[in-house]
């Protein structure tokens, strides 16, 4: 058990293993993305109120839901960095921050485009929008702290502390901002029956898209982790052999 655990910390081991995983993740991701997008764009009936604008939901909801996972992920990786000093955990935290900022920005942008048609405005100081914007600022704070600290080990630990504090703070911000002002609709219940407000032909593509975007998140995280491993281990023998061999 502990051997497995210490192996997991080794960047080389992860690089080799993730190389084997990748095809199994990329294949389903591509399949689900194509199916989901085709269904969402061509086969979903237009909403009785929102018309064709409803199709933005199939991009917005998956991105918004996955972007909530970044702070918990970074806090978890940060805790592992602080407690066990595992190299790989810090690489995860380091790559998750910019990725999280991109996903959050995409959720904000897609929501803004959707809102421009439905609410008649690109931006409104609503609870969820504001808390997402603040999450984006906190992520940018983590990224800029990492780039400001020159010593890599100190940067790893400092970002770990900030991620843990930020994770707690994101929750507090979420509640306080919701309580401050909310216009955004609460999440709608899904149902299998056809009389329900959300029939299967509406929510099945959404579930497919959610899985597709989650896989996209996993693939992009693994790819940037692999990239970061190569950069940080560039002086080690196995990386040199890998580069010369290709």
């Amino acid at each position, binding site marked *: 058990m502990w051997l497995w655990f210490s192996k997991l910390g080794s960047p080389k081991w992860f690089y080799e293993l993730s190389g084997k995983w990748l095809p199994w993740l990329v294949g389903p991701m591509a399949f689900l993305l194509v199916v989901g997008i085709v269904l969402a764009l061509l086969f979903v009936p237009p909403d009785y109120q929102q018309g064709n604008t409803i199709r933005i939901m199939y991009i917005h909801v998956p991105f918004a839901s996955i972007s909530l996972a970044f702070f918990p992920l970074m806090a978890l990786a940060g805790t592992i960095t602080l407690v066990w000093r595992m190299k790989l955990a810090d690489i995860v935290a380091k790559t998750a921050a910019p990725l999280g900022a991109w996903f959050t920005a995409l959720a904000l942008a897609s929501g803004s485009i959707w809102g421009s048609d439905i609410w008649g405005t690109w931006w409104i100081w609503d609870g969820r929008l504001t808390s997402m914007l603040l999450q984006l600022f906190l992520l940018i*704070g983590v990224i*800029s702290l990492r780039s400001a600290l020159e010593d890599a080990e100190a940067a790893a630990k400092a970002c770990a502390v900030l991620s843990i*504090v930020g994770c*707690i*703070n994101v929750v507090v*911000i979420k509640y306080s*901002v919701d309580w*401050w002002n909310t216009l955004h609709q609460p999440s709608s219940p899904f149902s299998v029956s056809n009389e329900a407000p959300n029939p299967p032909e509406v929510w099945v593509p959404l579930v497919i898209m959610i899985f597709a975007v989650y896989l996209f998140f996993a693939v992009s995280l693994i790819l940037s982790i692999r990239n970061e491993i190569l950069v940080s281990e560039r002086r080690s023998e196995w990386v040199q052999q890998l580069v010369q061999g290709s």
Partner: protein
Amino acid sequence: MSIQRTTTIKAFQATLRRDLLIAYKRKNDVINPFMFFLIVATLFPIGISPDPDRLSEIATGVLWISTLLASLLAMDNLYRADYEDGSLEQLLLIPHPLYFMVMAKNVAHWLISGLPVVLVSPLIAYMLNLPAESFGTLFITLLLGTPVLSLLGSIGVALTVGLGSRGLILAVITLPMSVPVLIAGTLAVQQTLNGASLAGYVAIMGAMLLASISLAPLASAAALRISVN
């Protein structure tokens, strides 16, 4: 030679007294954030409108944001000078829980930079034409909220103390974290203006204060150990 043992309480008091004494000797560090608060609060009527009705609408926000900015400006004094002259290292070597030493520095910092702002806030509120019945609420929420700002800011300073004068990172890290305090503080004042009870808001701010008293110094202490190594 006998080693004189001090209790944690004595070490706490000594750290607190030392920081207050330093502030007393370097009055500029105390006066500047306070003046900054007054000047920022003055800029709003000039920049927006001198119209009393409009001012009374924005007064709470102006006061809270000026407080937030003044607290941010004063943050730099918290650990930087100690870091530069090496006394921060000595503080980390004290054989008492670092939590209490950080707490002593935060208390001193709040007494120097937070409390004067709280005390002068009714005067500024009067000048901004805030209705008199909400002065009490404003005072109580600032009294509960400013220590939270100091405690949260302390984490940010502890993380960035080794960075020299790149103070803007501190703002990027600290300001988003202060949003819940800002929300609770401004809503409480509005609530009083609507004639409703403010017990709920005071309870929430008290909860924020207690949570940050118990957790924030731990994070600050961890951050200080990382920055000084």
